[in-house]
């Protein structure tokens, strides 16, 4: 019982002056604008019937994705939820691949098989969008376990990869969150649990859902540092992220970070968003993380208006290009229906000639169209 909770229970205090170089500042700005512009385009495309189902946008929360993910190496992993487009973009998946996926096209990052809530990229170590509450947390913890295993069992001395799991305030009432806090602390896994506390879980206010609304406090309660940070300030997020990522990379264990943020749109594009107080919305709109960063960059002479405008324009074009690309891409071939169910489909009707089972009409007995 040597662990002292109270010591860690103090939120870190941060000093945000001169936190960033010009180059970093522009990179961060660009990533946030990319996220915002991409999501705005999604809304348009959804209303035009180009994408379907549940589409959850990230507007307002960009400082969290950018603040953490831009500090990661390619080998580091990210796990997300149904609200996953922007995490994938920050981690390097191209706007074309994400947009195409949303259009249900063959050129999508999952060939149209995943969809809005299920972004995966092996190349970029995007472990997936997990659409069920809590699901991504253990999977991310498992990825962190792998890093440790590779270093300690497989003797890959240079494997210092970390994993970042993103999830919402509502998810912090779910049992899997606590199970994993415990195991990550117990086994000192290189993971950062990032709560994007946007105050709402669909229409359920955080305050109505939880007996102690200060989520970061669960860190010390489970034996790890817990930090609260202003999730509308990308520079603050970066500072906290740096420390937490560093700790994980050095093998010193997990961190729980609560980012106070806000979503500028409804829960999904189907949400009438009638419950949130307009005053609350206005309060957070005034703290738009992109506007704030812009102001900071200009005031600190880290960027000029024209430079930022140029970025905005480049991103606009990038997104236009992504839409065009997605629109022109082919639909998945019919054969895709039966591919990828297994890495090794032997026994499931694969022909003796080794040809893929979708060629074999007997594969799915009881199937509809095939």
């Amino acid at each position: 019982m040597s662990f002292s909770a109270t010591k860690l229970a103090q939120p870190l205090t941060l000093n945000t002056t001169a936190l960033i170089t010009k180059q970093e500042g522009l990179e961060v700005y660009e990533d946030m604008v990319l996220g915002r512009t991409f999501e705005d385009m999604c809304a348009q495309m959804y209303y035009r019937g180009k994408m379907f189902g549940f589409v959850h946008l990230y507007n307002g929360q960009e400082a969290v994705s950018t603040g953490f993910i831009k500090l990661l190496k390619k080998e580091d992993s990210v796990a997300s939820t149904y609200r996953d487009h922007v995490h994938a973009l920050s981690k390097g998946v191209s706007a074309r691949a994400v947009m195409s996926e949303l259009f249900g096209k063959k050129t999508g990052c999952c060939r149209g098989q995943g969809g809005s809530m299920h972004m995966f990229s092996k190349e970029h170590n995007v472990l997936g969008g997990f659409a069920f509450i809590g699901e991504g947390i253990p999977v991310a913890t498992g990825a962190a376990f792998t890093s440790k295993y590779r270093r300690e069992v497989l003797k890959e001395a240079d494997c210092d990869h970390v994993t970042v799991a993103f999830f919402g305030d509502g998810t912090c009432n779910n049992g899997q969150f606590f199970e994993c806090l415990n195991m990550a602390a117990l086994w000192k896994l290189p993971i950062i649990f990032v709560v994007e506390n946007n105050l709402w879980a669909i229409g359920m206010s955080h305050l109505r859902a939880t007996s102690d609304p200060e989520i970061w406090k669960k860190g010390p309660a489970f034996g790890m540092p817990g930090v609260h940070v202003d999730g509308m300030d990308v520079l603050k997020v970066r500072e906290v992220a740096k420390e937490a990522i560093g700790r994980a990379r050095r093998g010193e264990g997990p961190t729980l970070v609560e980012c106070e943020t806000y979503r500028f749109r409804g829960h999904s594009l189907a949400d009438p968003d009638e419950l949130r107080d307009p005053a609350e919305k206005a309060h957070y709109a005034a703290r738009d993380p992109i506007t704030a960063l812009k102001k900071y960059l200009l005031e600190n002479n880290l960027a000029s208006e024209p430079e930022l405008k140029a970025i905005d324009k480049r991103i606009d074009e990038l997104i236009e290009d992504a839409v065009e690309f997605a629109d022109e891409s082919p639909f998945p071939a019919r054969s895709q229906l039966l591919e990828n169910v297994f890495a090794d489909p032997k026994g499931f009707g694969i022909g003796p000639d080794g040809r893929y089972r979708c060629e074999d009409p007997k594969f799915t007995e009881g199937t509809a169209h095939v």
Partner: protein
Amino acid sequence: KEMTVRDALNSALDEEMSADPKVFLMGEEVGEYQGAYKISKGLLEKYGPDRVLDTPITEAGFTGIGVGAAYYGLRPVVEFMTFNFSMQAIDHIINSAAKSNYMSAGQINVPIVFRGPNGAAAGVGAQHSQCYAAWYASVPGLKVLTPYSSEDARGLLKAAIRDPDPVVFLENELLYGESFPVSDEARDSSFCLPIGKAKIEREGKDVTITAFSKMVGYSLKAAEILATEGISAEVINLRSIRPLDRSTINASVRKTNRLVTVEEGFPQHGVGAEICTSVVEESFGYLDAPVERIAGADVPMPYAANLERLAVPQVEDIVRAAKRACYRSVALAAAA
């Protein structure tokens, strides 16, 4: 006069809550948000937050709490935002709810309803599209209902709430907005349908088509097409998967001698397999052709719209299967 399935469910809940103060609704977003699919619209206002309970996102926890409340004779209606999420609570549905009456030798019955949309919706991908009818209906201690029309929805939900046993009530998101004619009788607050009885939606003599939920509508459309081609199909709306109305199904097959089963779920160990087997057990000698089983493709649901369409049964699949069943005789099959 018509009524949507949504209004049918809403009115059934409303009437049962009004009739019995022990009935209450719990789940995510059932209260202030009026339900993710607005099934509980207006109920919070009418019955207050103690009876329309917004829960944190804790399927295991709140389902267990519902079950515990039912142990003492409250009549909880637990809404799963979709039945997919019930996987996180399945231990309580099976162990704490379904098995308790038996383990306690009848001391503790569990009058609870688990309800919400089940199966494929549209464009929601692999995790949000699974059909749980076959799983739940394999478990002793559970009753499993699958309404199709507004009348089904009203009559079966009211029956489920009044039932002394745990009922898994599988709705379909894509039906919520559909309208059906509803008789005055079915509008009466005393209306209730028997659990375990299938409904013959359309009589026919050449082939029996069994279906539940959304697939009933597809089967009826298929029957219409078949009729134009001279095949008279009998369409059975199962309504209840457990207990399964074996006698209605077998009586129909003994008349038509041919059977097509339709479901959206995965084929293996599905509802179609059970129906086929129960017909083989009871009416083997009456079957003039192999049973045709139509089910969802044996794959996780793809997102892309064109693949999604291929993954679930379409009207033309049912038509084709019925024709196969009608043209193929035993002798032919043996030679195949």
